[in-house]
Structures are given as C-alpha cells and as structure tokens.
C-alpha cells in the first residue's frame, strides 16, 4: 500500500513537471514571436525614418536652390534701373552692361577674394549663367561659378528674364540658369 502511494506521488510530480515545461515553452514561444514582431516593426520604422530624413534633406536642398534663384533675380549688381531714376528697379530685367561687368569680375583672378568671400556666402556651391534666346546670340555670361567636387545633389532652375541693352535701348529674351550643388 505504501509503495503504491509512493509510485502515485512520483507519477503526479512527473506530470506536474511536464505541464510546467510545456507552459514554459509556450511562454518562450510567445516571447519569441513578440520579439520577432518588435524586430520587424523596428526594421520597418528605421527604413521609413531613413526615407523621411532623405526626403527632408532633398526638400531643404530644393529650398536652398529656390533661395539662390531668388537672390540672383534681385541682385542689384544685375538688375535694370529706370533711365530716370536709379532707385526705380525694373522687374525680371538684367542690364547687359552690368551682366558683362559681373561676368568679367568672376573671371578676373584679382577679384578672387570678392568671389570667394562675398559671393560664396550668398550663392555657395553653384553656377549662375545667363543665355540670350531671342534675338539669338551665341554669347552666354557666367556670372558666378563654384563647383563642388563630390556633389550628391544638383538642382537646376531656369527663369526667363529680359536683357536690356542700354546702347540700343532694346530688350532681349534671356534665360537665367541657376545650378546649385549639394
């Protein structure tokens, strides 16, 4: 009778141990699935964040390109002024004599300091040039150029502008191109 009771107790303990083991495996499996899901979530979130950061960077670069184009459009060194008063500025118009003068400055080694310090602050790494479209002329003027060796982004903005020839008192159709590197 005693032996029978002992055997019964041993069997009961064995059964309880197995049940506990099964429960433990169940908990481990649940935890494993949970961590796998969390891992997938994290990977997905990281990818999304990376794309989002890249988009923000591109957006900021686009804004910089717009800012540079705006700065050039309203540059007093290029803008046309009314023949009656230098204080009256004509919109969307560049004086060709001023354009030529600025293009010469950008080429002259003597003015390198001005280009490097003054204009670099405003335009950074970019190339700004003006083309004459109508009446056609092969003459183009590069008013600023500073290229970036290892550029990741490049943005080109084209803005139509009037080119005023004070000698003949006539206007040509020109295009201002602003290429910004980043």
């Amino acid at each position, binding site marked *: 009778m005693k032996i029978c009771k002992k055997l019964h107790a041993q069997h009961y303990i064995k059964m309880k141990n197995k049940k506990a083991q099964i429960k433990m495996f169940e908990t481990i499996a649940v935890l494993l699935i949970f961590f796998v899901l969390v891992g997938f979530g994290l990977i997905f979130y990281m990818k*999304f964040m990376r794309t989002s950061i890249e988009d923000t960077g591109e*957006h900021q670069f*686009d*804004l910089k*390109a*717009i800012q540079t*184009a705006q700065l050039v459009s309203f540059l007093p060194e290029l803008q046309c002024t009314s023949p009656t008063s230098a204080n009256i500025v004509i*919109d*969307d*118009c560049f004086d060709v004599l001023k354009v030529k003068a600025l293009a010469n400055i950008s080429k002259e080694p003597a003015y390198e300091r001005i280009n490097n310090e003054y204009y670099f602050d405003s335009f950074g790494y970019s190339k700004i040039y003006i083309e004459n*479209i*109508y*009446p*056609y002329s092969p003459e183009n003027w590069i008013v600023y150029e500073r290229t970036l060796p290892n550029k990741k982004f490049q*943005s080109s*903005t*084209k*803005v*139509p*502008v*009037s080119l005023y020839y004070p000698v003949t008192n*006539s*206007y*040509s*159709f*020109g*295009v201002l191109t602003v290429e910004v590197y980043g």
Partner: protein
Amino acid sequence: MIGKKSQAEIVGLVIIVLLITVGLLFFVRFVVLKPNSDAKRDYVDSELASNMINVLLKTTTDCKKSTMSDLFRDCAGFNRIDCDDDGNRGDSREKIEEVIEEIFNNTLEKWEKPYHFKAYIVRKYNTGENTIVERSYGKCSGNVDRISRTYVIPTDMESLMLTLDICS
C-alpha cells in the same frame, strides 16, 4: 475556469488585432496618402508662367524695333505695322508667330515642359473670341495639374488676353 481563461485569450487576441489595425491605419494615412509637396516644382512653374509672358511682351523685335506688346496691340487693333516696308500692312500677326515659335522652341519645348499658350481677342458684349496665336506642347489638356497665368492688354478696339498654362 476554462471558460474564463479562453475569454481572456480572446480579449488578448482582439487587442492585438486592434493594435495592428491602428498601426496599419497610421501607416496608410501618413505614408501612403502623404501629400506630395514639391516646393521647387511649384516655384519654378509659377515663375515660368508669369515671367514668360512678362518678358515676352517686353522683348524688342526686328520689326521696326517694336516690342511684342506693340505687335499684339496692332494685331488686335488696326493692323498698321508694315515690317518689311513693302506697302502691305498687317505684318504683326506673322511676326508674332515667328517670334513666339523661336522663343518657345528654345525654352519650354527644349526643357520638355508641357504648356499651352493662347492669345485671343475678347469681343465686346461676349460675342465670341478671335484667336491670334495658339501653341502647345506635351500633355496639357483635361485634368492635368497646371499653373495658369493670364494677362490682359487693352487695345484700340477690344481687350487682348494672353494665357499660359504650365502643366506638370
């Protein structure tokens, strides 16, 4: 006891399903349906549309040193301009077409930018319109996103309208 345990498990499952659904909804709202804002394209198209007409009207042609604005006015009015001095007046329309072709060919068409340009006279009392010049490139009709600019030039007789649509 068994019934209560299964109920608790069902509640847990429901919570998980709800959480996943909410997560998916957020993903769809903020990633898939994210508004596509392109600041640069908007700025460039807007500047292009307004500057193109502004600059075009100011441009001096080789026809008696008249500006495009003068030619448009003449074309919509009494047709008095004689570009080649051959005694035949009414050369303004031809000159307008020639200049517009050259400018648009070397700008918007070269940059592969779809557009639709139209210059037309609006008759008084809404009795119709008379097109002077119309030009388009690429897909720029129907439900296409566009930035439009309209200029009105008062002439001797009627009003002349210039419209330029820049399409994306």
